[in-house]
């Protein structure tokens, strides 16, 4: 939405009505007159009165309320439903004037509002008033039954307002058809606001539209509005830019294992979706989250569209979650209700009011999908998103549950919540071998690495636990099937162990044999070596013997000093030299 306050030359007075000041860039034109049009019961009087009350309470501005149609007592009594302390304000800040003329009053000739305006001027001065409301002016003007005279009085009021500088609101009833008698009013004033009220499928839908605003830009769409316990407010338009603080802080999911899977827990201020078929323990996970929050001392609000508070507490106790003490201490608030009709704007407005009243840091809405099934009005389609944006803006961590049989995207996007959820956990049933077990998966978790494995969720008297799932042959096993498989695995391991032991022994035997054989061969080698040495010895001694014999023979034969060197003797000498090298 554009910032309209930049686009105007007119000073504006805030109405304090949520959303209205935003779409007009500041409120109503100060010192000028605005016209509030609408059929009976549209909320014109509420709008005008709320502006006056806000002016008095928030800005200490005094105001005057001139009632032409209803008695002032009646107006004040009706307003008590909004919690505005009118009697207290009446004392010093607000002045109510009963300006009704009895319909049977005797009329003779023309009359005017001079006296009344003199009175109002005196009162305005006395209170130092800034704002004034003329409520139901058509009732008085109708008594004049002359269009010219009516116009004259309206101009008189306008001139008087210009003189006094009051910011005025005139409310006027219009019928379904265009009422030409008072259309001139619309041209005369500076700002026109149109309220509309219709009933669709038994539910009330209210809208507001700024039809004209002289001297200023404004958002001209028709906006849904709600009548809440605080008054009128625009319900559908939050901030157009998604600006909110993000935190690195984690809050516990309530289940230690799940915290671990999410690397610490949910992000503070994020919104979480837990989806699943009926009975898959969505409420249990919500209860765990609430319990963890309360244990940390954080205010928590649990909103339920399915069951009453006592029932929820009892059901959670059966799995070891006790919310009782937190309810008693006031830390935990529980609000159980049914969805009412197709107008979920009103219901989100109501939730908003409750959130403001309890100021929780953590919130559970169980199930959020209860609201999505009632959407028949187009404008309500993004109200869930608006509400969640509002929560994010306040840094409230919220866990929403949603009824979903499978992860079919068309269901998931019914509220669009699966796309805006920061963390999405899906619970499902796995039916196997005659057993029904619960499985938990983290479908997505923004800003966190997370385990993508399926885990089994078990609920028992002792509490809630998340256990690993067996992966066998590409299938996830749970429950009894898993136990059986575990047994089988164990037996298989035993068998492998024994088999490997046997193999080891066999190899040992083979090794021993090989070593033995090696020994035998070695012994043989030794024997042969020994033989060779003997042979060498023998050959060597034979050669020496021959040489010494020859020496003796020479000495015996010749006794000469010098042996006769013949060719034969040379050959023999050579032969002797070579004989050493050979072995025969």
């Amino acid at each position, binding site marked *: 939405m554009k910032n309209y306050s930049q686009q105007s030359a007119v000073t504006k007075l805030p109405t304090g009505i949520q959303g209205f000041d935003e779409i007009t860039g500041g409120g109503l034109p100060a010192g000028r007159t605005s016209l509030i049009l609408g059929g009976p019961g549209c909320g014109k009087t509420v709008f005008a009165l709320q502006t006056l009350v806000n002016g008095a309470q928030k800005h200490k501005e005094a105001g005057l309320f001139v009632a032409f149609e209803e008695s002032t007592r009646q107006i004040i009594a009706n307003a008590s439903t909004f919690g505005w302390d009118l009697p207290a304000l009446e004392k010093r800040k607000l002045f109510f004037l009963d300006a009704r*003329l009895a319909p049977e009053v005797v*009329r*003779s*000739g023309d*009359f*005017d*509002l001079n*006296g009344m305006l*003199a009175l109002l*001027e005196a009162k305005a001065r006395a209170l130092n008033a800034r704002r004034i409301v003329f409520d139901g002016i058509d009732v008085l003007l109708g008594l004049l039954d002359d269009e010219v005279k009516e116009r004259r009085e309206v101009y008189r009021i306008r001139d008087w307002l210009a003189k006094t500088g009051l910011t005025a609101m005139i409310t006027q009833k219009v019928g379904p058809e265009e009422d030409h008698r008072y259309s001139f009013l619309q041209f005369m004033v500076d700002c026109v606001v149109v309220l509309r009220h219709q009933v669709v499928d038994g539910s009330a839908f209210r809208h507001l539209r700024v039809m004209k605003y002289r001297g200023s830009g404004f958002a001209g769409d028709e906006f849904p509005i709600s009548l809440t316990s605080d008054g009128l407010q625009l319900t559908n338009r939050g901030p157009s830019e998604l600006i909110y603080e993000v935190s690195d802080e984690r809050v516990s999911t309530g289940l230690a294992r799940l915290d671990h899977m999410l690397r610490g827990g949910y992000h503070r201020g994020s919104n979480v979706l837990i989806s699943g078929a009926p009975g898959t323990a969505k409420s249990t996970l919500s209860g765990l989250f609430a319990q963890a929050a309360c244990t940390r001392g954080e205010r928590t609000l649990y909103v339920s569209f399915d069951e009453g508070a006592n029932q929820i507490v009892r059901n959670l106790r059966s799995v070891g979650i006790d919310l009782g003490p937190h309810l008693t201490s006031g830390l935990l608030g529980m609000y159980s209700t049914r969805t009412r009709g197709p107008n979920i704007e009103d219901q989100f407005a109501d939730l908003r009011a409750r959130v403001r009243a309890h100021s929780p840091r953590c919130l559970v809405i169980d199930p959020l999908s209860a609201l999505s099934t009632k959407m028949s009005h187009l404008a309500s389609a993004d109200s869930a998103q608006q509400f969640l944006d509002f929560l994010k803006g306040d840094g409230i961590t919220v866990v929403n549950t949603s009824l979903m049989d499978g992860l079919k995207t068309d269901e998931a996007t019914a509220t669009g919540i699966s796309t805006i959820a920061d963390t999405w956990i899906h619970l499902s049933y796995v039916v196997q071998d005659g057993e029904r077990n619960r499985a938990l998966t983290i479908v997505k978790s923004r800003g966190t690495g997370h385990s993508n494995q399926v885990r089994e969720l078990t609920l028992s008297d002792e509490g809630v636990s998340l256990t690993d799932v067996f992966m066998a042959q590409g299938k996830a096993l749970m429950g009894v099937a898993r136990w059986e498989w575990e047994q089988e695995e164990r037996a298989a391991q035993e068998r492998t162990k024994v088999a490997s032991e046997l193999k080891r022994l066999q190899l040992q035997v083979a090794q021993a044999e090989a070593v033995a054989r090696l020994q035998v061969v070695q012994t043989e080698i030794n024997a042969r070596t020994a033989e060779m040495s003997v042979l060498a010895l023998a050959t060597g001694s034979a050669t020496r013997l021959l040489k010494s014999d020859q020496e003796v023979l020479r000495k015996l034969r010749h006794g000469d000093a010098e042996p006769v060197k013949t060719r034969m003797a040379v050959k023999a000498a050579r032969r002797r030299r070579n004989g050493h090298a050979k072995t025969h």
Partner: protein
Amino acid sequence: MRVRLRLYVSGNAPNSARAIANAKTICIEHFDTRCDLEIIDLLAQPLRALADGIVVTPTLVRLLPLPVQKIVGNLSDTSQVLLALADA
């Protein structure tokens, strides 16, 4: 039987001036000396309007004889005025 009338006006605005004139005429012509007419100018005493429950001007109030009767307008329709004043 005295008739006590009080006429609330707003200065000398056209309707108020006519009402004063008309009231005086009716008084003299129809009630003679039995009529007491008091004129209150709301521009001078604005809070009187609140105290006495006057919404529009001019407003003629018959205080006596009871019950109190209110007639709004500049009293140009004399027959209406007399009718109302004759009501006992």
